[in-house]
């Protein structure tokens, strides 16, 4: 879980760096092509990851041995 988020944050930083580098006219054209491809691939992955997040709300409950277990949480809807 933790890893996933760090990856996203790092991926966003990387994507921003790729765009900045591609915008630099000093960067050779050959490298520019590679940057473009890498950036498009990375951003597509990031979008997919964001769109794939589909988690439920959980609440912790003690099981028979007193261990905390996650169960689905349904907020009572009285509001």
């Amino acid at each position: 879980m933790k890893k996933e988020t760090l990856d996203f944050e790092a991926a966003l930083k990387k994507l921003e760096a790729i765009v900045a580098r591609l915008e630099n006219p000093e960067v050779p054209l050959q490298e520019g092509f590679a940057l473009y491809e890498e950036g498009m691939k990375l951003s597509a992955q990031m979008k997919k990851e964001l769109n794939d997040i589909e988690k439920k709300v959980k609440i912790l409950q003690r099981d028979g041995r007193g261990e905390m277990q996650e169960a689905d949480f349904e907020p009572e809807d009285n509001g």
Partner: protein
Amino acid sequence: MPRRAPGAGRGNAAADMDPVMEKIFRVSELAQLLKLSLEAQFAAVAVLGEASGVVLASSGHLYFTLKDGGGALKVAMFRGALARSTLKRLENGQQVVVRGMLSVYPLRGELQVIASDIRLQGIGDIYAALERLKKAYQEKGYFDPARKRPLPLLPGRIGVVTSPTGAAVRDIVRILQRRFPGIAIVIYPARVQGEGAAAEIAAGIDYFSQAGPGAAVDVLIVGRGGGSYEDLWAFNEAPVVEAIHRSRVPVISAVGHETDFTIADFVADLRAATPSAAAELVVGRKDEFLGRIDFLRHGLMRAAERRLHEAASALQELRNESALADFPRRLQELAQRLDNGEFALARLFQQRLNARSQAWNLAARRFAAFDPGGRLRQRVLQLRQLDTQAGALVREALQRGGERLRLLEAALAGASPERILARGYSITTDSRQRVVRDAADLGADERIDIRFARGRAAARVIKE
């Protein structure tokens, strides 16, 4: 416990009403009886209400009425108790807790509380206690800004320590699901007020702080909805403060309303004004994340397009360069033609001039005999005019040619091979000093010369 009414056992009231056993009291006697009974039964009560009709009598005693929505009670605080009390001032409308003894003022038969202590609610006593706590933790460095950790940009899982039934949990879940549908939320249910609440909240924070992989969260919201100062007090207690302080997971405090401050707020990595605000702070909107990525993708495409465009222009320039390579030669030709033109013109002029001169000489000779005056002079003038006109023509032609030459020179300088070389290109010549345009023209091991913006280098071709 006085049981003055006759008859043993329970149910004195019933016994009093028994006509046979009936005892008739004097008013003062009954009032006194009531007073003693109440004072014994309610020797130490604490009662919360709003002060009204506050009077500080000249005797030094304090009188007021304690009210709430459903009742009223007279309160008297005598001079001695007042002097010992921490109460400095009491104003109508203030919420107070009165501690003392319930009694009856026999002269009027009025119920009243003889106060031994009066404490202000909300601000006042609790406020002072809060300030003391705050100072103590501040001195221990618990609020050090350097301790505050940044929150993750996109938490994989969000832990929430709060009551599972309050409005707070409902608000947090609703807002998070609206902002970021599908985000993972794990709730640790804890009582948030009353005896033992602080320990439960602390246990929840510790649970997430120590959770192994699979149960871990990336950020923690700890809080509850609004309430009185006492309701929120658990968030000022040491177990909660210490648990937040030692938490390995960044903590957002979300206690009560915007105006409420607790020690938890100061020690947390981030204070949210309300539970709803915490839900807004803990993660950005999903569509904002997607928007940011789309923005960057757009930037990529734009930059790539621009680079391609630039490359196309550079290519065009390279093509033009081959035309420029023989530009100096063409320029020379042009200059030569101009020179030739000049010569031709001069020659023509000369020829004409010569012809004129001859004609003039001839005429001069011819006319000398017949017309020594006017006609000859007229001819000379005509010839001089012609001379001048021809000279102007030549000068003009030369001037125009020079102007064009200058323009051509300027154009050449702008696109000179030097300028192109300065941009990082180089010119390669083969062993016969010809410019290489096709690698296929080169033989294996052939010596080539490369000219750069600065300097030259010799190289050999490696054919693989």
